[in-house]
């Protein structure tokens, strides 16, 4: 019995002590503790890379592309799609639409990640740290700018006093972040401008065009000022970018292969959202919607490499074709069999299959692309538009002609004040046409029209209206020129007011 008792107590104590030491915790292998994530310069640099990664996410870059580009007259959807992207194209948004919800969510995640870094770097830190703070400020500004143009009405309407989006600045408390209300469009613009000015001031390192730098902040400032109709500032910041000498307009074959090379090698791109070869999204890429073909760029049937159901509109192709020399036709790859243009016959009238290749074929990979967010051509055209509005017609035409010459046009294809007058157009009309031609499929058109109080006219084959009728005009005052605030966000934060 004595032995048994000993055995008993020894076992019991061994177990009690032995198991107590088993009560330990573990750290994941693919993540680090947030408290350790921003403690030194190297980690802050790594975290800054992570901020970029958040908007490289498909929820931002792909869904955002659908929202910014599909409502335009540059494209035609050739068949009815079960994806919610069709609702952006058709202006038939639902409060529960998926792409606006994805975009909203990912944009704020990136802004919040930026906030954390912004708040740990002092303004008088080392140059490298100031650069990183500037990059994060730029990203926060870019997030808010894209949000406000997707969910808030164009700035000129009601002088920016319409509802914009919540401003997610650094230093907010947890509870404040749970119930942010929408600021006005003007307040959001002011916030964006302040961030960009400070970012430009902090940044001193010229990184590749996949990263923010002083010139990138200037370039976005030019666009932001243009959108809020501060034309002088739009010119000022476009000038700063042009004068920096970091960029030039690429020409000839280099231009026609603009989107196919290694993105960093492109001297015209100011900022792109870099996707590496391992980040080809296949059928879920932006390019797969526009193009189906082989790695050499030869157009093939739908489903060869992608869905191939969003085409350049007949309206756009006809416009480019007015000048047979226009190099910009090379960004459209008509799908031809035996030299006969193919039609998508799912709808009546049939939609011509003009594939768009601006989001395909980077480094020879068919569905790979690093979407270009800002490039030098836009700076010239921003300056042109601002000058046109300020009454500097010739200066505006000079910039337009610079872009047209680069596109291979010459002689009568270039504009003069006289030729513009003769065609009973204004200089601004000519600038807007050129922006359309040059920046097509890059997410500008819808804003260029609506902020200038112009209508979107889509009288061409496509699924944008119910079968049979192909005429559609969207007025800049239409409720649906902006998207609904995602219902799921309103459900989680009742301070958010819905758009009508």
């Amino acid at each position, binding site marked *: *019995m004595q032995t*048994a008792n000993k*055995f*008993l107590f020894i*076992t*019991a*104590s061994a177990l*009690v002590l032995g*198991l107590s030491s*088993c*009560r*330990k915790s*573990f750290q*994941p*292998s693919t*993540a*680090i*503790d*947030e*408290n350790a994530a921003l403690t030194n310069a190297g*980690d802050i640099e790594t975290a800054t*890379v*992570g901020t*970029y*990664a958040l908007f490289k*996410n498909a929820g931002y870059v792909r869904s955002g592309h659908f929202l910014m580009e599909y409502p335009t007259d540059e494209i035609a959807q050739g068949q*009815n*799609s*079960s994806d919610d992207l069709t609702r952006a194209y*058709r202006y*038939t948004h*639902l*409060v529960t639409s998926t792409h606006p919800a994805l975009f909203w*969510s990912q944009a704020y*995640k990136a802004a919040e990640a930026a906030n*954390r870094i912004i708040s740990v770097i002092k303004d008088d830190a080392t140059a490298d740290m100031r650069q990183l703070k500037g990059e994060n400020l730029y990203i926060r500004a870019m997030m808010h700018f894209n949000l406000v143009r997707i969910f808030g009405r164009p700035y000129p309407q009601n002088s920016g006093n319409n509802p914009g989006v919540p401003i997610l600045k650094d230093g907010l408390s947890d509870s404040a*972040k*749970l119930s*942010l209300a929408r600021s006005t469009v003007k307040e959001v613009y002011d916030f964006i401008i302040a961030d960009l000015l400070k970012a430009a001031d902090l940044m001193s390192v010229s990184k590749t065009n*996949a990263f923010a730098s002083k010139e990138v902040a200037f370039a976005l400032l030019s666009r932001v000022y243009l959108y809020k109709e501060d034309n002088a500032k739009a010119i000022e910041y476009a000038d700063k970018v042009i004068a920096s000498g970091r960029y030039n307009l690429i020409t000839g074959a280099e231009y026609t292969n603009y989107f196919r090379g290694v993105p960093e090698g492109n001297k015209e791109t100011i900022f792109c959202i870099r996707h*590496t*070869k*391992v980040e*080809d999204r*296949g*059928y879920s890429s932006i390019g797969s919607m526009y193009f189906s073909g082989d790695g050499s760029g030869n157009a*093939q*049937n739908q*489903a*060869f*490499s992608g869905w191939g159901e969003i085409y350049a509109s007949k309206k756009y192709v006809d416009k480019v074709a007015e000048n047979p020399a226009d190099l910009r036709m090379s960004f459209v790859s008509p799908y031809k069999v035996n030299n006969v243009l193919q039609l998508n*016959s799912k709808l009546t009238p049939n939609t011509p299959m003009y594939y768009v290749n601006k989001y395909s074929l980077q480094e020879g990979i*068919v*569905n790979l692309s690093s979407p270009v967010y800002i490039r030098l051509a836009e700076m010239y055209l921003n300056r042109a538009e601002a000058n046109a509005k300020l009454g500097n017609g010739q200066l505006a035409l000079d910039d337009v002609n610079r872009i047209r010459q680069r596109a291979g046009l010459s002689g009568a294809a270039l504009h003069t004040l006289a030729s513009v007058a003769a065609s009973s157009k204004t200089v601004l009309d000519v600038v807007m046409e050129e922006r359309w031609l040059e920046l097509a499929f890059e997410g500008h058109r819808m804003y260029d029209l609506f902020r200038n109080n112009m209508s979107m006219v889509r009288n061409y084959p496509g*699924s944008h209206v*119910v*079968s049979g009728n192909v005429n559609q005009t969207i007025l800049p005052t239409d409720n649906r020129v902006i998207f609904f605030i995602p219902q*799921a966000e309103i*459900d*989680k934060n009742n301070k958010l007011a819905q758009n009508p």
Partner: protein
Amino acid sequence: MLVFLFALLAAIYSWAQNNSTIIISGTVKDKEGLLLPNVSVTEKGTSNTVITNEAGTFRISVKNRNAELLISSVGFQPLTVKAADNISIVLEAKSEELQEVAVVGYSSKKRIELSSSVSVVSGEKLRDVTSNELTSLLQGKAPGVVVSTGSGDPTSGSNVLIRGAGTINASTAPLYVVDGNIGGTFNPNDVESVTILKDAAATGLYGSRAANGVIIVTTKSGKSGKAKIEFTSTAGFSEATTGNFRLMNTQQLYDYQKTFFNPNPAALNTNTNWWDLAFRRAKVQSYNLSASGGSDKTTYYISGNYYKEEGTLINNDKTAYNFRTNISHKLSERLKVSVLLNGIFTKDTYNPDATVYDAYLNMPFDSAYNVDGTPKDARYGTWYGRDRDNFLHSLQYNFSKAKSFNMNGDLNLDYKISKHFSFATYNRARLFNYRSDAFYDKRSKEGATDAGALYNSTSFTNKLLTSNRLKYTNNFGNHGITALAVAEVEKTFAESIDTYATGLPPGRPVLSTSTGEKKTISGRVDESIFSKYLAQADYNYSNKYFFVASFVNEYSSRFGKNNPSANFYQLGASWIISNEDFLNVKPITFLKLRASYGTTGNADGIGDYAALGLYSISQGASYAGLPGAAPSQKANPDLTWERMTTSNIGVDVSFFKRIDLTVDAYNRVSTDLLFFRPLPATTGYDGVYENVGSIRNRGIEFNITSKNFTRKFTWETNLNMAFNRNKVLSVNQGRTEVFTGARQPVAVGRDMDEWYMPVWAGVNPVNGEPLWEKLLTDADGKSYVIYTNSYNAATRQYIGKSAAPKFTGGVTNTFAYNNFTLTAFLNFVYGNRVYNDSRFYFDNDGLYESYNQMQLAKGWSRWSKPGDIATHPKPVHGRTDASNASSTRYLEDGSYIRLRNIRLSYDLPNSVISKAKLSAVRFFVSGDNLWTLTNFSGVDPEVVLSGGESSIKYPISKKVLFGLNISF
């Protein structure tokens, strides 16, 4: 605490010693020869009582050789015998069902002695349906156990819910305990019995992770005596169920499209039935060979099993090889060692393409074959279907498969320290290796853009568990006491590697041939620990009153640093009224009341690091080829165990020894619910893991077994039913919904599975437009309904209908005559609503012309002219009114009753088999799921009940199987 307990036990032990004159020993067995533990042996006319030990033996000191012994045990007829040394006593059972031994907690007891709500399913009853998976065998066999199978894919599992979902986000899966330890592996053929523990008093010992109930599996062991060899062979066919669902053929689709579109008349030349191309009559086979037996000291059970089930979907099957050895040996009178080994090798073949989707949606207008009979490559030429998919073309080249090796070894020692103390250590190592390969050939549509793609993934997991138990049992007079102390720890380690490589030559599916981008190369390591201490005490008085109390402290590395461990306690009591003298009513042969109360926890359904604030450093956080780190998870250091408090009262009653009835009522309140609470995007996160609120499940369940005829012709009926009602009691931080905006938002005061969506109001007879309800409020604050044709204007509403059934159950009838036995088992589910999500595609009112459509179900109609009262709007090609968006339109009654199994078996007469020196030969024919009654318009109403959605469903199978069972 533990030390105190031991001290107490030691004190009781010494007090219980007594002196005696003549010592008599003996054994007590039942009619089948099973040794009976815990039988009271009383010297008649005295209070001198002993209890048989686990081997059914007893030693009692009596005053003289003429003493008489009164042998009694719950569930058996009492017996008086004359005392004699080495006496062998056989007790006759009172009622069969109550004799079943239920393995509960860390011991086994007769059901009759339990204070808890448990269901026992014997191995025989389990194996009528043919499946390699225990869960699908359990369906309808025990009250309150709801099994739902979301897919007919033999490689996928089913979902088990015990007494309704007591959790929102955490797992609702019950805890499996195999051969006395948490977790573990087994093949259904090796199962001796399954015990399902439902209330806190029973589940509590498994503590903390047992909140969803516990399924205890005991595998077979050998019995001393002659070796027994058993061979079972089952083979048969299966077909996909298609229920009420019919797709259109070419003519039907063409005629329908004519009403809103100009289909190409050339399409009429082809009429492809894609469903028939995707599904097949599949073969199922299972062979099982086992040997068992042993000596007084050693027993063994060895078995091997081969199982192969083809999916009804082409290119889909499961093959499993299972090997088990259970050996136990008595090293001495005091020390028993048991070694249990189970190895399972599984090969799964998955259909690599969107074949099920295509079976529903590919157009009959498109031909699957070229004129030369080869599969057509849908990428080229005319193709009407939206996806340009011909799976027959892709399946020539592509494959997806996985194999796994699962090794489970238990080493258990039982040491009898003294007459009253015993110590046991149960130790288990589980090793799991997994490898999957998916290859998309460059010649196929799926592999073309990558010029061939190969996905490889391997993983290694081990779980090490040790459970150490000290037990004290003693009986003095009419008092019986058992006390138990356990210390247990389980550590899990897992590592994995995943690769996605591109640029492979045709038909060369190995990584070395890849010359393209290696798009993913990822690997990770995960570790977690659970550990606990528990103490339990059982007391019974005179086999009439039973009490049990237990306490558990458990730690999990998953929870926040502020609250990683928690305490749980359980209490139970029962009273066998029929053992009282005052209850001497003829019809009632047994009557027992049970009550229990206690708390349990839930730690499943969240990841290993859910409480930590994290920056992800995986490839997704990289940019421009540089490694990055991005915020990925919001911290919640307070995150802690989800807790459930369960009260249960039950009654077990037998009438005339013919009818056994068990009724249980329970109330289960879950608090600190684990949930990934969605946060506004402006927080920078999608959400955070929190303990968000509380819900209640209450219900009644009963099980009745009636022997209707018991003579030459026997007929036994078993009916079990369960009614569960769920209600969300509270949500923290002043909110009223957990998952605001979802189709099932989990709102205070409502069923957690209640649907919330716009209410479909039918079709406007004037113009054929869809209508939804819009709620408005008048000046007096009264709300009223108007109808709107704008989906955005429609009001999302709680519709008072839930994805949870009002009741579920099963009926089994067994008829036997001579050597024939016929068993028919029906299971039913009533009152749930299923969201038939795929109608978005195949019932879309003309929106998409490039998907095949379903034929209108019975009672449905399409609007065609003003005045029509129709269920379906006027078809409009490319319509913009969102008539197919989420609304009650696609919410259907999911009730069904199904003939889950019918089985006829024939045993060769003894006269024949004894000549052949066999001990039993049985033939059987068995049919699974042959008949289903439902109003559901899809292929099958059975869905995973917690989600309640039917989407591009791989339907379950009807099976017809033939079998042979031979024992030597």
